[in-house]
């Protein structure tokens, strides 16, 4: 079953300098049980895309348009407030990038998980609390019985991140949208959390959209990858193919700058040049000012993203169609 369909999503913000387009025509979809990874440049529109999917951006200043924005079979562009409230948390739950500001500072952890459960499930407060404690234990918070009585400022960054994950999982969502869910975790706990998510996916067919900069986590967790740059999708494809044979010059540059591949103190590889300024984006291909193989045409034509039967696509005029289809 298709859980998410996004077609030609455009998000702009009203700003001092005028309209700024943060997302400039993004399309992808997600099947149940599938894991989709979104990677890409900082500021390329990953978080905005996911917030737009749940209609969480304040409109205005944001404006969202799309040919299709469907979540769990519901048209998110037409849903009213009540419909949105019943979709959020239950059909799709989101883990936010900034765990340390994502919880209400004046309520306990327990209260905040319980209210989520009670909003969507027929459960008494007591049952909900028991469930909250069980969930916290599953995300490796050992003294969960005590932690439910804590306030957010009493937990470490990584503990808050796990609380957010537990809260998102508390209503058994059909889709989990996880924005950098493991940045504050050490790798052993990270491994356990990712395993937990996989187990839940196997049990319930939950779909996963995961945004992360950790390419190791991508390699290990997801089935399909969307690579974003400058508000657009540069490349998509099955994870093995992307890592084995990246097609788009940006994807290649990204994979080449993964740090720590050799031992010892060292300078790290940067992609030369600077990120596009969304207020004043480059014409044509957004990557052309930094692309090592750019040609004149790149400045004028905006390359299209056409998905081939192999499930691959690359928005680059210099990538021959045969290679995408190979």
């Amino acid at each position, binding site marked *: 079953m298709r859980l998410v369909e996004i077609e030609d999503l455009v998000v702009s913000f009203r700003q001092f300098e005028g309209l700024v387009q943060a997302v400039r025509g993004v399309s992808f979809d997600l099947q149940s049980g599938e894991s989709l990874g979104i990677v890409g440049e900082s500021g390329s529109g990953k978080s905005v895309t996911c917030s737009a999917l749940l209609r969480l951006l304040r409109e205005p200043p944001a404006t969202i348009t799309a040919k299709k924005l469907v979540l769990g079979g519901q048209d998110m562009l037409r849903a009213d407030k009540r419909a949105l409230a019943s979709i959020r948390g239950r059909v799709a739950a989101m883990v936010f*990038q900034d765990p340390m500001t994502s919880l209400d500072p004046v309520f306990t952890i327990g209260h905040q998980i319980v209210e989520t459960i009670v909003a969507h499930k027929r459960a008494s407060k007591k049952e909900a609390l028991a469930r909250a404690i069980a969930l916290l234990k599953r995300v490796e918070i050992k003294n969960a019985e005590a932690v439910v009585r804590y306030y957010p400022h009493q937990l470490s960054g990584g503990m808050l991140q796990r609380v957010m994950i537990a809260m998102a999982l508390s209503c058994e969502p059909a889709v989990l949208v996880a924005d950098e869910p493991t940045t504050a975790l050490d790798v052993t706990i990270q491994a356990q959390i990712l395993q937990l998510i996989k187990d839940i996916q196997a049990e319930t067919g939950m779909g996963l959209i995961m945004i992360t900069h950790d*390419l190791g986590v991508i390699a290990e967790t997801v089935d399909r990858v969307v690579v974003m740059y400058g508000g657009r999708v540069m490349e998509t494809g099955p994870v093995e193919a992307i890592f084995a044979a990246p097609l788009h010059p940006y994807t290649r540059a990204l994979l080449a700058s993964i740090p720590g591949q050799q031992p010892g103190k060292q300078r790290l590889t940067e992609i030369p040049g600077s990120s596009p300024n969304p207020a004043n984006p480059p014409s044509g291909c957004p990557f052309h000012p930094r692309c090592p193989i750019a040609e004149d045409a790149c400045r004028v034509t905006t390359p299209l993203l056409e998905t081939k039967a192999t499930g691959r696509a690359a928005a680059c005029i210099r990538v021959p169609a045969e290679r995408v289809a190979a």
Partner: protein
Amino acid sequence: MSEHALELSQISKEFGGRTVVDRVNLVVPKNQVVALVGESGSGKTTTGLMALRLIEPSAGRILLGGHDITSLRQRDLKPFRRQMQVVFQDSYASLDPMMTLGEIIAEPLAIHAIGTASERRDRARDWLQRVGLDGSYATRYPHELSGGQRQRVSVARALILGASVLVADEPTSALDVSVKAQIVNLLQGLQADMGLSMLFISHDLSVVRSLADQVVVMLRGRVVERGPTDRIFANAHHPYTRALLDAVPVIDPTARRRRTFLTAEEINANTPRFRPEDIEPQPLVDTADPQLVALAGSHFVEAIVTGGR
């Protein structure tokens, strides 16, 4: 004895009767980067904030450049504040939502009354560019940024004063690999050119490996191992450090595996055991309690010393 940039000795912190940092010793030598890694919730942030007197320690001493700042009043701390800067783990919460990025980055200059308003503005723009953001971002507000852009603003604000000691708590966790490389290279450059010393708290072992001179590993409020970066990565002795290194995800989707993780019991059961002759300097106290013992090459590990005498 040479002065270190930062030295914590036997520092502890209790919150409501729970000890979250337990007699930690930690030294950041001048012009070095010491990475603090370890379990989530093990007390890294608390330790870092204590080093800056942003959390008051329950016990122990803090020395900054050889000066004991443990019990200085906030007013007397002000001259030291200029030398030490911090990048907070919660970069969003530490940025004033009512200020523009230009104002936020220039604020430390304003606090210490450095330069004229327009000089400060120029320097702020300059620093925006050094962390990879366009100068036009100076007029934006924090909530209009992506996670990684906010993190870079925190880094710029921490560095603008030219501090000599930086405590950076997860300063690269929200950055893509290229920007991360840019920030890490920037920090390396400052270490080389301006003699910056740094306590670098991070879960990102690949960055730690490329940036740090020494690594300190924390587990449940205690330091369990520390040593030169290469030795820790090549020859870790503590089971937790090993578990940590083993659990780093492999960047190859065809080589997926179930990553290993150890329970607390397994870690305790596997505490390294040494005979006294394995340990430097000889002779060493003989006790059944786990404690840090010295191995060759300034490498220390929590271990049980058995037999001997």
